[in-house]
């Protein structure tokens, strides 16, 4: 019997505000954190969480991760000291890109002032592992660390890696999730050049009129602990990570395989890893990017992975409909939202969904929060798929 892995802390900074609960409540209330075609974390002031030196020394994606980690660790009751030997606490934070804003700033310095004025902080600001590094220094975590960089699957892949660290016995607890901040001129132009982002400036996942995603920023951090250790210290359990499945499309560098075969394999593997079947799933937190290709192939993948009849019966909604696409942070923030949805027993809606598209015939929960489950323990899947054809799926459960 492998070690069970429970969730004891949740933290989030998203375009809907600071706080995990804020994200869930405002999404469920139908609020949307998108302004003028972008989804920034408008309510986030890094000075509320960090010293001026920390603000200066960390890219915005790291600032977001640090703030989310403070919330998650406080909820886990780790405020003063970690409850385990620090060498037994790991950290895995995923990101799609890393500190691209810092990179762009320093490129301006190079061009305008010359090489002697490029900041010595340029590398630590922009490196993709900066969030992982900042979290371990801030919280004194000395166990195994990794950074997952698998585009928009990075947050989910990070949590999957964390699950396995605890299961394998390499760590007693892991602080994990995803962080991203790419609302910069270069990144925005680059995503627009691929036709990935919405011309209309609207997220409407699975709707016939969908035309791409809105770029967002944020961070979602979870505290995972070995279940027996968490119980021994009297921790409050918020949920459990039952399984993780991953696969690669090996099809196209940006487009998903249209039939969703790779994604379906990841769904099957997550279920198998959890020892569950399609009938056990009460809710699906979809990747749901509002791009024509993803929402079609994801629908096919859910039908292939869960069986068509079962896929159509499970409430399936997209957090991105409320906060845009947080890229490498998406899996972290969406896992946070999914855990709270399971605690509440309600699936939040896919906002903006009005016009059904041909072949996209799942229950996308257009009509507001919906009660889920049949009285048993509530279980969900959270999907994340990234450019490069990376597919990651988590199986999460209520306590």
């Amino acid at each position: 019997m492998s070690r069970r892995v429970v969730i004891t802390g949740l933290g989030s900074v998203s375009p809907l505000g600071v706080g995990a609960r804020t994200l869930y409540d405002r999404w469920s209330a139908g609020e949307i954190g998108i302004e003028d075609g972008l989804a920034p974390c408008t309510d986030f002031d890094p000075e509320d969480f960090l010293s001026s030196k920390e603000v200066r020394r960390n890219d915005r994606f790291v600032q977001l991760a640090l703030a989310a980690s403070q919330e998650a660790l406080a909820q886990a009751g780790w405020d003063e000291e970690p409850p385990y030997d620090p060498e037994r606490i790991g950290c895995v934070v995923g990101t799609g890109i890393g500190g691209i804003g810092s990179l762009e700033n320093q490129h301006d310095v190079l061009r305008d002032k010359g090489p002697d004025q490029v900041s010595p902080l340029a590398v630590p600001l922009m490196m993709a592992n900066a969030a992982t590094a900042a979290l371990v220094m801030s919280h004194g975590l000395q166990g195994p660390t990794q950074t997952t960089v698998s585009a928009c699957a990075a947050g989910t892949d990070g949590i999957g890696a964390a699950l396995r660290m605890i299961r394998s016995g390499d760590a007693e607890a892991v602080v994990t999730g995803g962080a991203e901040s790419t609302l910069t001129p270069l990144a925005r132009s680059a995503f627009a050049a691929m036709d990935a982002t919405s011309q209309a400036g609207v997220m409407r996942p699975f709707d016939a009129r969908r035309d791409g995603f809105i770029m967002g920023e944020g961070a979602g951090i979870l505290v995972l602990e070995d279940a027996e250790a968490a119980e021994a210290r009297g921790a409050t359990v918020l949920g459990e990570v039952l399984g993780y499945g991953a696969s690669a499309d090996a099809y196209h560098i940006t487009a998903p395989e249209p039939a969703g075969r790779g994604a379906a394999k990841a769904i099957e593997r997550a279920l198998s890893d959890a020892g569950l079947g399609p009938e056990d799933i009460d809710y699906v937190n979809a990747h749901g990017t509002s791009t024509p290709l993803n929402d079609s192939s994801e629908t096919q993948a859910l039908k292939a992975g869960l069986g068509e009849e079962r896929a159509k019966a499970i409430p399936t909604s997209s957090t991105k409909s409320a906060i845009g696409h947080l890229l490498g942070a998406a899996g972290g923030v969406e896992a946070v939202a999914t855990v709270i949805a399971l605690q509440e027993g309600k699936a939040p809606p896919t906002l903006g969904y009005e016009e059904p598209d041909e072949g996209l015939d799942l229950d996308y929960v257009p009509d507001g929060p919906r009660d889920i489950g049949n009285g048993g323990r509530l279980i969900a899947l959270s999907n994340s798929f990234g450019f490069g054809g990376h597919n990651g799926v988590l199986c999460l459960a209520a306590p």
Partner: protein
Amino acid sequence: MAEVTQEAVEEKVVDALAELGPDRSEITRDATFESLDIDSLDLVEMSQVVDEEFGVQVKGEDAQQLNTVGDAIDFIVARAG
């Protein structure tokens, strides 16, 4: 380039260090960089400001010899002179 005087260098060094984190009131001639939580990366940033202002470079081994704010000011003034 600005003219290098003791006062001008002191003002610029204090301004640069204050940008890097420590409280301005703590930045005295006798304060050590360690006590101000100014590390090697901060010193490079400070030296870039000084280079831009006075055309004086504080690099590598030279920077490693500097322990206090006063050390840095004196080094820059001496190097310029």
